[in-house]
């Protein structure tokens, strides 16, 4: 599957199947800090990702100290 990361934008090819949770664990990403979007649709952490999926891991943490 293709995995798209942001800030900076980059792409990875990773083997499937695996769950969203397992993917985030392998990448060292805290689930609370991202959304996972598969083929333009939000998915929960128990969803299984397959070879043909395009998966965006979108960071949600933002902001200056204002």
């Amino acid at each position, binding site marked *: 599957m293709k995995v798209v990361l*942001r*800030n900076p934008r980059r792409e990875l090819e990773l083997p499937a199947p695996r769950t969203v949770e397992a993917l985030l664990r392998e990448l060292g990403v*805290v*689930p*609370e*800090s*991202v*959304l996972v*979007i598969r083929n333009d*649709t*939000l*998915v*929960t*952490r*128990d969803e299984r990702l397959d070879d043909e999926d395009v998966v965006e891991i*979108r*960071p*949600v*943490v*933002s*902001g*200056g*100290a*204002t």
Partner: protein
Amino acid sequence: MKCRRCREQAVIDVRRHNAAFCGPCFLHHCREQVRRAIDDFEMIRPGERVLVAVSGGKDSLGLWDLLRELGYDADGLYVGLGIGDYSDTSGRHAREFAHERGMKLIEVDLPTDHGFDIPDGSRAAHRAPCSACGLSKRHVFNETALAHGYDVLATGHNLDDEAAVLFGNVLHWETGYLGRQHPVLPATPGFARKVKPLIRLGERELAAYCVLRGIDYVVEECPMATGNRHLGYKEALNAIEERSPGTKASFLFGFLERGHHRFAGDAVDEREALRACSRCGAPTPGDARGGDALCAFCRLRARATGSGHR
């Protein structure tokens, strides 16, 4: 996972509520959280005009959308900060959001209207960029809300923002800031009422709300905020939240219910000592050495533009 309300396939889990939601039920959840925050803290009264400070990011555009969905008379205010491509992109998102929905967006541009941008201004004034940016935005938000006769100024500060600010204020025992940290700051002479209707929603929920509502927001982080202390606090709190869901909400709402009143006196004392800025008229503690009472924004602008005041 199944949606807690309707048992359809869920698209987002919210662990602090031990719940997951399908798209329509999640949008209902977000509206209910904002409605409850507004009601619980008496933020906005029926018929009042609201000015929403929008940056082009998920929180502020999500807030504007949510307030309109809930029936409020809400216009937007975008402040151009002059942070290169980032500001260009942010402004475009804010303008397109407003244009597509036929909503009124007021714009103030720091370089055009005040003669400086955040990168140069923060260097000239020897302030951290986020400090100069926050100071400038707070000043322009308040000034614009008063000048245009809005009843209330709403900002997109969410649960994560407020928990991180509280964390920092507690770590450094900033008692004056703790006394002022509240979802509603009432109007006082020279200050518009300020409210934070997103206090019951985390930033992950705001991002999901925007995706589900088709709101095109700027995903890129401000280049000047990278690695700042506030983001470090958020990272630490998210690591705790992952092990103990609900900790951020418990920390923040526990403070508001049981801790805030202990520090409120410090904030009142500071506000009572304010006088009018000799340049713009905004309330300010002024210069402790007894000189001109310039507010912090006018001092920043003077240093940034080399117009004489130090």
